[in-house]
Protein backbone atom coordinates (compact mmCIF):
# COMPACT_ATOMS: atom_id res chain seq x y z
CA UNK A 1 0.00 0.00 0.00
CA UNK A 2 2.74 2.42 0.95
CA UNK A 3 4.71 1.45 -2.10
CA UNK A 4 1.69 2.04 -4.29
CA UNK A 5 1.18 5.45 -2.75
CA UNK A 6 4.85 6.22 -3.18
CA UNK A 7 4.72 5.17 -6.82
CA UNK A 8 1.71 7.34 -7.46
CA UNK A 9 3.30 10.33 -5.81
CA UNK A 10 6.55 9.77 -7.65
CA UNK A 11 4.66 9.59 -10.93
CA UNK A 12 2.73 12.72 -10.06
CA UNK A 13 5.85 14.55 -9.06
CA UNK A 14 7.71 13.48 -12.16
CA UNK A 15 4.88 14.42 -14.47
CA UNK A 16 4.36 17.69 -12.69
CA UNK A 17 8.04 18.59 -12.62
CA UNK A 18 8.63 17.83 -16.25
CA UNK A 19 5.75 20.02 -17.28
CA UNK A 20 6.69 23.56 -17.96
CA UNK A 21 4.95 26.27 -16.00
CA UNK A 22 3.54 27.73 -19.16
CA UNK A 23 1.64 24.56 -20.02
CA UNK A 24 -1.64 26.25 -19.33
CA UNK A 25 -3.02 26.45 -22.80
CA UNK A 26 -6.36 25.24 -21.53
CA UNK A 27 -8.05 26.99 -18.68
CA UNK A 28 -8.59 24.99 -15.50
CA UNK A 29 -12.31 24.63 -16.11
CA UNK A 30 -11.92 23.31 -19.67
CA UNK A 31 -13.16 19.77 -20.03
CA UNK A 32 -10.58 17.20 -21.05
CA UNK A 33 -11.30 15.24 -24.17
CA UNK A 34 -11.52 11.45 -24.04
CA UNK A 35 -8.67 9.45 -25.53
CA UNK A 36 -9.76 6.93 -28.14
CA UNK A 37 -7.74 3.74 -27.59
CA UNK A 38 -9.24 1.07 -29.82
CA UNK A 39 -11.46 0.82 -32.84
CA UNK A 40 -11.68 -2.78 -33.92
CA UNK A 41 -13.94 -5.20 -35.75
CA UNK A 42 -16.14 -7.34 -33.53
CA UNK A 43 -19.05 -9.54 -34.59
CA UNK A 44 -19.21 -7.84 -37.97
CA UNK A 45 -19.41 -4.35 -36.48
CA UNK A 46 -16.93 -2.02 -34.78
CA UNK A 47 -16.03 -1.87 -31.11
CA UNK A 48 -14.60 1.30 -29.60
CA UNK A 49 -12.67 1.66 -26.36
CA UNK A 50 -11.45 4.89 -24.85
CA UNK A 51 -10.15 6.53 -21.69
CA UNK A 52 -12.19 9.18 -19.98
CA UNK A 53 -9.62 11.83 -19.10
CA UNK A 54 -12.38 13.90 -17.51
CA UNK A 55 -13.89 11.90 -14.66
CA UNK A 56 -17.14 13.79 -14.24
CA UNK A 57 -18.61 14.02 -17.72
CA UNK A 58 -22.37 13.70 -17.92
CA UNK A 59 -22.00 11.84 -21.19
CA UNK A 60 -19.57 10.89 -23.89
CA UNK A 61 -20.71 11.58 -27.41
CA UNK A 62 -19.30 9.80 -30.43
CA UNK A 63 -19.29 11.10 -33.95
CA UNK A 64 -18.64 9.05 -37.05
CA UNK A 65 -17.90 9.79 -40.66
CA UNK A 66 -17.88 7.64 -43.76
CA UNK A 67 -16.02 8.44 -46.95
CA UNK A 68 -15.67 12.20 -47.21
CA UNK A 69 -18.99 12.92 -45.54
CA UNK A 70 -18.97 15.19 -42.49
CA UNK A 71 -18.97 13.77 -38.97
CA UNK A 72 -22.37 12.93 -37.51
CA UNK A 73 -23.26 11.94 -33.98
CA UNK A 74 -23.68 8.18 -33.78
CA UNK A 75 -24.17 7.48 -30.08
CA UNK A 76 -24.08 8.96 -26.60
CA UNK A 77 -23.32 7.00 -23.44
CA UNK A 78 -23.09 7.94 -19.74
CA UNK A 79 -19.87 9.73 -18.78
CA UNK A 80 -18.47 6.80 -16.81
CA UNK A 81 -18.69 4.40 -19.75
CA UNK A 82 -15.51 3.69 -21.68
CA UNK A 83 -16.58 1.38 -24.51
CA UNK A 84 -19.28 0.87 -27.06
CA UNK A 85 -19.99 -1.39 -29.98
CA UNK A 86 -21.33 0.51 -32.96
CA UNK A 87 -23.67 -2.16 -34.22
CA UNK A 88 -24.66 -0.01 -37.19
CA UNK A 89 -21.15 0.03 -38.66
CA UNK A 90 -21.40 -3.14 -40.71
CA UNK A 91 -20.59 -2.17 -44.29
CA UNK A 92 -17.32 -2.89 -46.07
CA UNK A 93 -15.91 0.61 -45.71
CA UNK A 94 -13.77 2.72 -43.43
CA UNK A 95 -15.53 4.37 -40.51
CA UNK A 96 -13.77 7.19 -38.66
CA UNK A 97 -14.67 8.11 -35.08
CA UNK A 98 -14.02 10.90 -32.63
CA UNK A 99 -15.39 11.49 -29.15
CA UNK A 100 -16.03 14.36 -26.81
CA UNK A 101 -17.10 14.80 -23.24
CA UNK A 102 -20.25 16.71 -22.37
CA UNK A 103 -20.93 18.22 -18.99
CA UNK A 104 -23.95 20.44 -18.57
CA UNK A 105 -23.98 22.55 -21.69
CA UNK A 106 -20.21 22.45 -22.10
CA UNK A 107 -18.17 20.23 -24.39
CA UNK A 108 -14.55 19.18 -24.38
CA UNK A 109 -12.41 19.31 -27.46
CA UNK A 110 -12.68 16.30 -29.72
CA UNK A 111 -10.54 13.27 -29.02
CA UNK A 112 -8.07 11.79 -31.43
CA UNK A 113 -9.66 10.04 -34.39
CA UNK A 114 -9.55 6.34 -35.19
CA UNK A 115 -10.65 4.50 -38.29
CA UNK A 116 -11.47 0.88 -39.07
CA UNK A 117 -13.35 -1.34 -41.47
CA UNK A 118 -15.63 -3.90 -39.76
CA UNK A 119 -14.96 -6.49 -42.44
CA UNK A 120 -11.19 -6.29 -42.06
CA UNK A 121 -9.90 -8.21 -39.07
CA UNK A 122 -7.18 -5.77 -38.03
CA UNK A 123 -6.70 -3.23 -35.29
CA UNK A 124 -8.02 0.28 -35.78
CA UNK A 125 -5.77 3.02 -37.00
CA UNK A 126 -5.33 6.59 -35.97
CA UNK A 127 -7.02 9.00 -38.25
Amino acid at each position, binding site marked *: *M*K*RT*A*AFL*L*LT*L*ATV*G*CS*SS*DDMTGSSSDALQAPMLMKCMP*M*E*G*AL*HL*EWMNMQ*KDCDSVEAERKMHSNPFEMVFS*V*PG*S*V*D*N*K*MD*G*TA*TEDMDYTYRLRCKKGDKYSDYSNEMMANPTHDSAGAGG
Partner: protein
Amino acid sequence: MRRTFCALALALTLALVCAGCSSTGAEADAGAVEVPELVRAPNESTQPNQLEVSLEAREARKSYISGPSTAVWTYNGTVPGPLLDAKQGDELVVHFHNSLPEETTIHWHGVRVPAAMDGTPRMQDPVPPNGTFEYRFTLKDPGLFWFHPHVRSDEQVEKGLYGVVRVGGSDEPTSDRESILVLDDVNVMPDGSLPTYLDDESKMLGRQGKTLLVNGAASPILHWRAGSLDRFRIVNVANGRFFNLSLPGYTWRVIGTDGGLIPEPYDTERLLISPGERYDVLLVVHGEPGTRVTLVNEPYERGHDTGKEDPMPVADFIVTGEAPLSGRVLPQGFPKLERLQDGTVDQRLVLNEDLHNGELVFTINDATFPDVPLIDVPAGSMQRIEVQNDSKMDHPFHLHGTFFQVLTTNGEATAPERLANKDTVIVPQMSTLKLAARFDEPGGWMYHCHILEHAEGGMMGEIDVAPLR
Protein backbone atom coordinates in the same frame (compact mmCIF):
# COMPACT_ATOMS: atom_id res chain seq x y z
CA MET B 1 3.56 26.89 -7.17
CA ARG B 2 4.05 23.75 -9.23
CA ARG B 3 7.74 23.60 -8.26
CA THR B 4 6.84 23.86 -4.58
CA PHE B 5 4.36 21.01 -5.02
CA CYS B 6 7.02 18.97 -6.80
CA ALA B 7 9.50 19.40 -4.00
CA LEU B 8 6.93 18.46 -1.39
CA ALA B 9 5.73 15.48 -3.38
CA LEU B 10 9.24 14.18 -3.93
CA ALA B 11 10.09 14.58 -0.24
CA LEU B 12 6.92 12.76 0.74
CA THR B 13 7.63 10.07 -1.84
CA LEU B 14 11.12 9.43 -0.48
CA ALA B 15 9.75 9.28 3.04
CA LEU B 16 7.11 6.79 2.02
CA VAL B 17 9.58 4.66 0.06
CA CYS B 18 11.93 4.51 3.05
CA ALA B 19 9.05 3.72 5.39
CA GLY B 20 7.89 1.00 3.02
CA CYS B 21 11.32 -0.61 2.91
CA SER B 22 11.49 -0.89 6.67
CA SER B 23 7.89 -1.86 7.29
CA THR B 24 7.21 -5.09 9.09
CA GLY B 25 4.64 -7.60 7.95
CA ALA B 26 2.34 -6.45 10.71
CA GLU B 27 2.49 -2.86 9.50
CA ALA B 28 1.87 -3.93 5.95
CA ASP B 29 -1.24 -5.81 7.10
CA ALA B 30 -2.70 -2.81 8.86
CA GLY B 31 -6.21 -2.42 7.60
CA ALA B 32 -6.29 -5.79 5.83
CA VAL B 33 -9.08 -8.04 6.99
CA GLU B 34 -8.92 -11.78 7.55
CA VAL B 35 -10.96 -13.75 5.02
CA PRO B 36 -14.41 -13.57 6.63
CA GLU B 37 -15.93 -16.87 7.64
CA LEU B 38 -19.40 -17.44 6.30
CA VAL B 39 -22.03 -17.19 9.02
CA ARG B 40 -24.16 -20.32 9.41
CA ALA B 41 -27.89 -19.80 9.21
CA PRO B 42 -29.35 -20.98 12.52
CA ASN B 43 -31.35 -24.17 12.34
CA GLU B 44 -34.93 -23.47 13.42
CA SER B 45 -35.89 -27.11 13.35
CA THR B 46 -35.95 -29.52 16.26
CA GLN B 47 -36.39 -32.45 13.91
CA PRO B 48 -33.45 -34.71 13.18
CA ASN B 49 -32.18 -34.68 9.61
CA GLN B 50 -33.78 -31.34 8.86
CA LEU B 51 -32.30 -27.90 8.32
CA GLU B 52 -34.95 -25.23 8.57
CA VAL B 53 -33.91 -21.64 7.98
CA SER B 54 -35.41 -18.26 7.22
CA LEU B 55 -34.02 -16.24 4.37
CA GLU B 56 -35.00 -12.67 3.69
CA ALA B 57 -33.91 -10.90 0.52
CA ARG B 58 -33.42 -7.32 1.56
CA GLU B 59 -31.49 -4.16 0.87
CA ALA B 60 -28.47 -3.23 2.95
CA ARG B 61 -25.26 -1.21 2.70
CA LYS B 62 -21.77 -2.63 2.50
CA SER B 63 -18.30 -1.10 2.44
CA TYR B 64 -16.33 -2.98 -0.19
CA ILE B 65 -13.48 -0.49 -0.32
CA SER B 66 -12.59 2.75 1.40
CA GLY B 67 -14.96 5.55 0.56
CA PRO B 68 -18.73 5.70 0.45
CA SER B 69 -20.57 2.46 1.16
CA THR B 70 -22.54 0.60 -1.50
CA ALA B 71 -26.23 -0.18 -1.64
CA VAL B 72 -26.41 -3.97 -1.98
CA TRP B 73 -29.06 -6.65 -2.12
CA THR B 74 -28.59 -9.41 0.40
CA TYR B 75 -29.90 -12.56 1.96
CA ASN B 76 -30.34 -11.77 5.67
CA GLY B 77 -28.28 -8.60 5.40
CA THR B 78 -24.92 -10.04 4.35
CA VAL B 79 -22.90 -10.55 1.16
CA PRO B 80 -22.45 -13.46 0.75
CA GLY B 81 -25.63 -14.64 2.38
CA PRO B 82 -25.62 -17.13 5.24
CA LEU B 83 -24.10 -20.59 4.92
CA LEU B 84 -26.65 -23.37 4.81
CA ASP B 85 -24.74 -26.20 6.40
CA ALA B 86 -26.35 -29.62 6.17
CA LYS B 87 -25.56 -33.25 5.58
CA GLN B 88 -26.54 -35.63 2.85
CA GLY B 89 -30.11 -36.81 3.25
CA ASP B 90 -31.24 -33.82 5.29
CA GLU B 91 -34.43 -32.06 4.35
CA LEU B 92 -33.86 -28.37 3.69
CA VAL B 93 -36.76 -26.07 4.51
CA VAL B 94 -36.37 -22.41 3.63
CA HIS B 95 -38.94 -19.83 4.67
CA PHE B 96 -38.25 -17.13 2.11
CA HIS B 97 -39.47 -13.57 2.35
CA ASN B 98 -38.87 -11.02 -0.36
CA SER B 99 -38.30 -7.53 1.04
CA LEU B 100 -36.82 -6.24 -2.20
CA PRO B 101 -38.63 -3.72 -4.39
CA GLU B 102 -38.90 -6.23 -7.25
CA GLU B 103 -39.78 -9.90 -7.72
CA THR B 104 -37.21 -12.60 -7.27
CA THR B 105 -36.71 -16.34 -6.74
CA ILE B 106 -34.06 -18.64 -5.30
CA HIS B 107 -32.38 -21.11 -7.62
CA TRP B 108 -30.40 -23.88 -5.90
CA HIS B 109 -27.43 -24.12 -8.21
CA GLY B 110 -26.28 -27.73 -8.54
CA VAL B 111 -28.76 -29.16 -6.03
CA ARG B 112 -30.96 -31.90 -7.47
CA VAL B 113 -34.38 -30.65 -6.44
CA PRO B 114 -37.96 -31.20 -7.61
CA ALA B 115 -38.60 -28.87 -10.54
CA ALA B 116 -41.11 -26.82 -8.57
CA MET B 117 -38.31 -25.93 -6.13
CA ASP B 118 -35.77 -24.93 -8.78
CA GLY B 119 -36.55 -21.23 -8.66
CA THR B 120 -36.95 -20.70 -12.37
CA PRO B 121 -39.87 -18.62 -13.63
CA ARG B 122 -40.96 -21.60 -15.75
CA MET B 123 -41.70 -23.71 -12.69
CA GLN B 124 -42.36 -21.10 -10.02
CA ASP B 125 -44.13 -17.77 -10.08
CA PRO B 126 -41.56 -15.22 -8.98
CA VAL B 127 -42.01 -14.03 -5.41
CA PRO B 128 -43.36 -10.47 -5.53
CA PRO B 129 -42.21 -7.69 -3.22
CA ASN B 130 -43.31 -8.53 0.32
CA GLY B 131 -44.23 -12.02 -0.84
CA THR B 132 -43.17 -15.35 0.63
CA PHE B 133 -42.38 -18.84 -0.59
CA GLU B 134 -41.41 -22.07 1.10
CA TYR B 135 -38.66 -24.13 -0.48
CA ARG B 136 -38.58 -27.70 0.78
CA PHE B 137 -36.52 -30.58 -0.61
CA THR B 138 -34.12 -33.33 0.35
CA LEU B 139 -30.40 -32.81 -0.14
CA LYS B 140 -29.55 -35.93 -2.13
CA ASP B 141 -25.91 -35.28 -2.88
CA PRO B 142 -22.90 -34.24 -0.83
CA GLY B 143 -20.96 -31.28 -2.16
CA LEU B 144 -20.72 -27.52 -2.25
CA PHE B 145 -23.61 -25.74 -3.94
CA TRP B 146 -24.86 -22.19 -4.04
CA PHE B 147 -28.05 -20.24 -4.35
CA HIS B 148 -29.02 -17.12 -6.23
CA PRO B 149 -32.02 -15.56 -7.99
CA HIS B 150 -33.17 -16.72 -11.40
CA VAL B 151 -35.04 -13.50 -12.20
CA ARG B 152 -33.02 -10.69 -13.77
CA SER B 153 -30.13 -12.71 -12.43
CA ASP B 154 -27.41 -10.57 -13.99
CA GLU B 155 -28.50 -7.55 -11.95
CA GLN B 156 -29.67 -9.31 -8.79
CA VAL B 157 -26.54 -11.44 -8.38
CA GLU B 158 -24.32 -8.45 -9.17
CA LYS B 159 -26.01 -6.57 -6.35
CA GLY B 160 -25.03 -9.29 -3.89
CA LEU B 161 -27.74 -11.96 -3.85
CA TYR B 162 -25.87 -15.22 -3.41
CA GLY B 163 -25.10 -17.75 -0.71
CA VAL B 164 -23.64 -21.21 -0.23
CA VAL B 165 -25.05 -24.63 0.64
CA ARG B 166 -22.58 -27.15 2.02
CA VAL B 167 -23.77 -30.73 2.18
CA GLY B 168 -21.51 -33.08 4.08
CA GLY B 169 -21.13 -36.66 2.95
CA SER B 170 -20.25 -39.86 4.73
CA ASP B 171 -16.78 -40.14 3.24
CA GLU B 172 -15.44 -36.61 3.53
CA PRO B 173 -11.64 -36.41 3.38
CA THR B 174 -9.89 -35.45 6.58
CA SER B 175 -8.16 -32.10 6.81
CA ASP B 176 -6.86 -29.82 9.53
CA ARG B 177 -8.99 -26.98 8.34
CA GLU B 178 -11.72 -26.42 5.78
CA SER B 179 -12.38 -22.99 4.31
CA ILE B 180 -15.06 -21.94 1.88
CA LEU B 181 -13.92 -19.24 -0.54
CA VAL B 182 -16.69 -17.41 -2.40
CA LEU B 183 -15.06 -15.52 -5.26
CA ASP B 184 -16.67 -12.49 -6.83
CA ASP B 185 -15.79 -9.08 -8.20
CA VAL B 186 -17.43 -5.72 -8.01
CA ASN B 187 -17.10 -2.39 -9.75
CA VAL B 188 -17.60 0.31 -7.15
CA MET B 189 -18.01 3.83 -8.51
CA PRO B 190 -16.43 6.81 -6.68
CA ASP B 191 -19.78 7.58 -5.04
CA GLY B 192 -20.07 3.99 -3.79
CA SER B 193 -22.72 2.96 -6.26
CA LEU B 194 -22.63 0.05 -8.69
CA PRO B 195 -22.96 0.93 -12.37
CA THR B 196 -26.54 0.91 -13.57
CA TYR B 197 -25.69 1.19 -17.26
CA LEU B 198 -24.73 -2.07 -18.95
CA ASP B 199 -21.95 -1.16 -21.38
CA ASP B 200 -21.19 -3.30 -24.39
CA GLU B 201 -17.98 -4.76 -22.99
CA SER B 202 -19.95 -5.97 -19.98
CA LYS B 203 -22.56 -7.40 -22.31
CA MET B 204 -19.82 -9.22 -24.18
CA LEU B 205 -17.69 -10.44 -21.26
CA GLY B 206 -20.18 -10.25 -18.43
CA ARG B 207 -19.84 -7.58 -15.78
CA GLN B 208 -16.27 -7.60 -14.47
CA GLY B 209 -15.37 -5.52 -11.46
CA LYS B 210 -12.02 -3.98 -10.69
CA THR B 211 -12.22 -5.19 -7.08
CA LEU B 212 -11.90 -8.91 -6.42
CA LEU B 213 -13.74 -10.29 -3.42
CA VAL B 214 -13.25 -13.32 -1.20
CA ASN B 215 -16.31 -13.92 0.96
CA GLY B 216 -17.27 -10.30 0.33
CA ALA B 217 -13.91 -8.82 1.39
CA ALA B 218 -11.43 -7.07 -0.90
CA SER B 219 -7.75 -8.07 -0.66
CA PRO B 220 -8.14 -10.11 2.53
CA ILE B 221 -5.46 -12.10 4.29
CA LEU B 222 -5.63 -15.68 5.46
CA HIS B 223 -3.38 -17.03 8.20
CA TRP B 224 -2.48 -20.68 7.94
CA ARG B 225 -0.26 -23.02 9.88
CA ALA B 226 2.84 -24.68 8.49
CA GLY B 227 2.33 -28.39 7.91
CA SER B 228 -1.43 -28.05 8.00
CA LEU B 229 -3.52 -29.94 5.47
CA ASP B 230 -5.92 -27.23 4.36
CA ARG B 231 -9.05 -27.88 2.35
CA PHE B 232 -10.49 -25.09 0.24
CA ARG B 233 -13.93 -25.27 -1.27
CA ILE B 234 -14.10 -22.59 -3.89
CA VAL B 235 -17.11 -21.24 -5.77
CA ASN B 236 -17.08 -18.56 -8.46
CA VAL B 237 -20.23 -16.47 -8.11
CA ALA B 238 -19.07 -13.65 -10.41
CA ASN B 239 -21.29 -12.63 -13.29
CA GLY B 240 -18.62 -12.90 -15.94
CA ARG B 241 -15.13 -13.17 -14.51
CA PHE B 242 -13.22 -16.42 -14.84
CA PHE B 243 -10.84 -17.07 -11.96
CA ASN B 244 -7.56 -18.68 -13.01
CA LEU B 245 -5.93 -19.11 -9.63
CA SER B 246 -2.27 -19.62 -8.93
CA LEU B 247 -0.54 -19.74 -5.57
CA PRO B 248 3.22 -19.49 -6.17
CA GLY B 249 5.09 -22.40 -4.63
CA TYR B 250 1.98 -24.58 -4.46
CA THR B 251 0.21 -27.09 -6.66
CA TRP B 252 -3.52 -27.55 -6.23
CA ARG B 253 -4.58 -31.10 -5.41
CA VAL B 254 -8.07 -31.19 -6.91
CA ILE B 255 -10.30 -33.65 -5.06
CA GLY B 256 -13.75 -32.57 -6.14
CA THR B 257 -15.88 -30.29 -8.22
CA ASP B 258 -19.56 -29.42 -8.76
CA GLY B 259 -21.03 -32.86 -8.03
CA GLY B 260 -18.78 -33.84 -5.15
CA LEU B 261 -15.55 -35.78 -4.82
CA ILE B 262 -13.83 -37.16 -7.88
CA PRO B 263 -12.41 -40.71 -7.99
CA GLU B 264 -8.93 -39.73 -9.08
CA PRO B 265 -7.58 -36.48 -7.59
CA TYR B 266 -5.14 -34.61 -9.80
CA ASP B 267 -2.63 -31.80 -9.45
CA THR B 268 -2.67 -28.53 -11.31
CA GLU B 269 -0.68 -25.30 -11.20
CA ARG B 270 -3.64 -23.20 -12.27
CA LEU B 271 -7.16 -23.67 -11.03
CA LEU B 272 -9.54 -22.35 -13.67
CA ILE B 273 -13.04 -21.71 -12.33
CA SER B 274 -15.73 -20.26 -14.55
CA PRO B 275 -18.83 -18.53 -13.18
CA GLY B 276 -21.01 -21.08 -11.41
CA GLU B 277 -18.37 -23.79 -11.03
CA ARG B 278 -16.98 -25.13 -7.77
CA TYR B 279 -13.67 -26.81 -6.99
CA ASP B 280 -12.59 -28.70 -3.90
CA VAL B 281 -8.82 -28.63 -3.34
CA LEU B 282 -6.21 -29.56 -0.76
CA LEU B 283 -2.82 -28.06 0.04
CA VAL B 284 -0.16 -28.80 2.64
CA VAL B 285 1.10 -25.48 3.98
CA HIS B 286 4.84 -24.91 4.07
CA GLY B 287 7.20 -22.09 4.94
CA GLU B 288 8.61 -20.25 7.92
CA PRO B 289 6.38 -18.15 10.17
CA GLY B 290 5.54 -14.89 8.44
CA THR B 291 6.00 -16.32 4.95
CA ARG B 292 3.54 -14.58 2.70
CA VAL B 293 2.24 -15.86 -0.61
CA THR B 294 -0.27 -14.08 -2.80
CA LEU B 295 -3.19 -15.87 -4.39
CA VAL B 296 -3.27 -14.44 -7.90
CA ASN B 297 -5.92 -14.43 -10.61
CA GLU B 298 -3.82 -15.03 -13.71
CA PRO B 299 -4.96 -13.88 -17.17
CA TYR B 300 -6.90 -16.46 -19.14
CA GLU B 301 -7.82 -16.06 -22.79
CA ARG B 302 -11.53 -16.72 -22.93
CA GLY B 303 -11.93 -14.56 -26.00
CA HIS B 304 -11.78 -10.94 -27.04
CA ASP B 305 -8.24 -10.40 -25.72
CA THR B 306 -9.06 -11.27 -22.12
CA GLY B 307 -5.73 -13.10 -21.97
CA LYS B 308 -3.98 -9.74 -22.15
CA GLU B 309 -5.44 -8.52 -18.87
CA ASP B 310 -3.07 -7.96 -15.96
CA PRO B 311 -2.75 -10.51 -13.15
CA MET B 312 -4.80 -9.48 -10.13
CA PRO B 313 -4.04 -10.28 -6.49
CA VAL B 314 -6.93 -12.04 -4.77
CA ALA B 315 -5.71 -12.58 -1.20
CA ASP B 316 -2.51 -12.96 0.82
CA PHE B 317 -1.82 -16.18 2.70
CA ILE B 318 0.53 -15.84 5.70
CA VAL B 319 2.12 -18.63 7.71
CA THR B 320 1.41 -18.24 11.44
CA GLY B 321 3.94 -18.55 14.22
CA GLU B 322 2.36 -21.72 15.58
CA ALA B 323 4.47 -24.88 15.74
CA PRO B 324 4.36 -26.67 12.41
CA LEU B 325 2.22 -29.75 12.05
CA SER B 326 3.79 -32.82 10.50
CA GLY B 327 2.89 -35.99 8.71
CA ARG B 328 0.02 -34.61 6.66
CA VAL B 329 -0.36 -36.28 3.28
CA LEU B 330 -2.59 -35.60 0.33
CA PRO B 331 -5.22 -38.24 -0.47
CA GLN B 332 -4.79 -40.38 -3.55
CA GLY B 333 -8.30 -41.46 -4.42
CA PHE B 334 -11.96 -41.70 -3.60
CA PRO B 335 -14.75 -44.15 -4.47
CA LYS B 336 -15.31 -44.81 -8.14
CA LEU B 337 -17.78 -42.81 -10.14
CA GLU B 338 -20.19 -44.51 -12.50
CA ARG B 339 -19.22 -43.48 -16.00
CA LEU B 340 -22.29 -42.59 -18.01
CA GLN B 341 -22.51 -44.52 -21.26
CA ASP B 342 -21.62 -42.95 -24.55
CA GLY B 343 -24.00 -43.21 -27.47
CA THR B 344 -25.41 -41.34 -30.41
CA VAL B 345 -26.13 -37.67 -29.97
CA ASP B 346 -29.72 -37.00 -28.88
CA GLN B 347 -29.62 -33.21 -28.68
CA ARG B 348 -27.42 -30.71 -30.41
CA LEU B 349 -26.95 -27.17 -29.15
CA VAL B 350 -24.94 -24.59 -31.05
CA LEU B 351 -23.83 -21.56 -29.04
CA ASN B 352 -23.03 -18.34 -30.82
CA GLU B 353 -23.05 -14.58 -30.60
CA ASP B 354 -24.50 -12.24 -33.17
CA LEU B 355 -25.80 -8.77 -33.89
CA HIS B 356 -29.57 -8.35 -34.17
CA ASN B 357 -30.62 -4.88 -35.25
CA GLY B 358 -27.29 -3.52 -34.09
CA GLU B 359 -27.57 -5.13 -30.64
CA LEU B 360 -25.37 -7.90 -29.33
CA VAL B 361 -27.26 -11.14 -28.70
CA PHE B 362 -26.26 -14.62 -27.59
CA THR B 363 -27.91 -17.49 -29.35
CA ILE B 364 -28.61 -21.20 -29.07
CA ASN B 365 -29.37 -22.85 -32.40
CA ASP B 366 -29.65 -19.35 -33.92
CA ALA B 367 -32.42 -18.29 -31.55
CA THR B 368 -32.60 -16.31 -28.34
CA PHE B 369 -34.57 -17.22 -25.24
CA PRO B 370 -37.56 -17.61 -25.04
CA ASP B 371 -37.59 -18.52 -28.73
CA VAL B 372 -35.03 -21.32 -28.40
CA PRO B 373 -36.99 -24.48 -29.30
CA LEU B 374 -38.06 -26.55 -26.31
CA ILE B 375 -36.43 -29.96 -25.93
CA ASP B 376 -38.68 -32.83 -24.84
CA VAL B 377 -37.18 -35.89 -23.21
CA PRO B 378 -38.80 -38.81 -21.38
CA ALA B 379 -38.26 -39.14 -17.64
CA GLY B 380 -35.57 -41.65 -16.78
CA SER B 381 -33.83 -41.29 -20.12
CA MET B 382 -30.15 -40.86 -20.74
CA GLN B 383 -29.41 -38.01 -23.13
CA ARG B 384 -26.22 -37.29 -24.99
CA ILE B 385 -26.04 -33.59 -25.61
CA GLU B 386 -23.57 -32.11 -28.02
CA VAL B 387 -22.73 -28.51 -27.15
CA GLN B 388 -20.93 -26.80 -29.99
CA ASN B 389 -19.48 -23.38 -29.35
CA ASP B 390 -19.19 -21.52 -32.64
CA SER B 391 -18.33 -18.22 -31.00
CA LYS B 392 -14.93 -16.71 -30.34
CA MET B 393 -15.27 -16.83 -26.60
CA ASP B 394 -15.72 -19.49 -23.92
CA HIS B 395 -19.15 -20.12 -22.45
CA PRO B 396 -19.73 -21.83 -19.09
CA PHE B 397 -22.67 -24.12 -19.85
CA HIS B 398 -24.98 -24.80 -16.89
CA LEU B 399 -27.67 -27.47 -16.77
CA HIS B 400 -30.37 -27.48 -14.10
CA GLY B 401 -31.83 -30.48 -12.33
CA THR B 402 -29.20 -33.12 -12.89
CA PHE B 403 -25.51 -33.69 -13.17
CA PHE B 404 -23.78 -34.46 -16.44
CA GLN B 405 -20.44 -35.89 -17.41
CA VAL B 406 -18.23 -34.68 -20.24
CA LEU B 407 -17.75 -37.66 -22.54
CA THR B 408 -15.59 -36.02 -25.19
CA THR B 409 -14.00 -32.70 -26.04
CA ASN B 410 -13.59 -32.19 -29.77
CA GLY B 411 -14.01 -35.94 -30.18
CA GLU B 412 -11.37 -36.86 -27.63
CA ALA B 413 -12.54 -38.96 -24.70
CA THR B 414 -12.31 -37.49 -21.21
CA ALA B 415 -9.33 -38.92 -19.32
CA PRO B 416 -10.32 -41.15 -16.39
CA GLU B 417 -8.81 -38.74 -13.86
CA ARG B 418 -10.95 -35.92 -15.18
CA LEU B 419 -14.23 -37.81 -14.98
CA ALA B 420 -16.60 -35.87 -12.76
CA ASN B 421 -20.21 -35.06 -12.13
CA LYS B 422 -20.69 -31.50 -13.27
CA ASP B 423 -23.49 -28.99 -13.54
CA THR B 424 -21.42 -26.23 -15.10
CA VAL B 425 -18.60 -26.68 -17.59
CA ILE B 426 -16.52 -24.42 -19.79
CA VAL B 427 -17.24 -24.93 -23.47
CA PRO B 428 -14.12 -23.43 -25.00
CA GLN B 429 -14.41 -21.14 -27.99
CA MET B 430 -14.76 -22.96 -31.33
CA SER B 431 -14.99 -26.31 -29.54
CA THR B 432 -17.51 -29.09 -29.08
CA LEU B 433 -18.30 -31.05 -25.93
CA LYS B 434 -20.39 -34.18 -25.79
CA LEU B 435 -22.20 -34.51 -22.49
CA ALA B 436 -24.23 -37.32 -20.97
CA ALA B 437 -26.99 -36.68 -18.46
CA ARG B 438 -29.74 -38.80 -16.98
CA PHE B 439 -33.04 -36.98 -16.56
CA ASP B 440 -34.86 -38.64 -13.69
CA GLU B 441 -36.88 -35.76 -12.34
CA PRO B 442 -39.94 -34.65 -14.32
CA GLY B 443 -40.46 -30.97 -14.98
CA GLY B 444 -39.03 -28.08 -16.92
CA TRP B 445 -35.30 -27.57 -16.60
CA MET B 446 -33.27 -24.69 -17.87
CA TYR B 447 -29.85 -24.73 -19.43
CA HIS B 448 -27.85 -21.61 -20.16
CA CYS B 449 -24.53 -19.87 -20.27
CA HIS B 450 -23.56 -18.88 -16.72
CA ILE B 451 -22.11 -15.59 -17.84
CA LEU B 452 -25.30 -14.05 -16.57
CA GLU B 453 -25.37 -11.26 -19.14
CA HIS B 454 -25.26 -13.93 -21.85
CA ALA B 455 -28.14 -15.86 -20.28
CA GLU B 456 -30.20 -12.67 -20.02
CA GLY B 457 -29.03 -11.77 -23.53
CA GLY B 458 -30.63 -14.90 -24.98
CA MET B 459 -28.31 -17.86 -24.41
CA MET B 460 -30.79 -19.93 -22.44
CA GLY B 461 -33.16 -22.79 -23.22
CA GLU B 462 -35.43 -25.36 -21.60
CA ILE B 463 -35.68 -29.11 -21.41
CA ASP B 464 -39.05 -30.63 -20.54
CA VAL B 465 -38.83 -33.98 -18.85
CA ALA B 466 -42.17 -35.76 -19.26
CA PRO B 467 -44.47 -36.36 -17.57
CA LEU B 468 -44.61 -32.74 -16.44
CA ARG B 469 -45.87 -32.25 -12.90
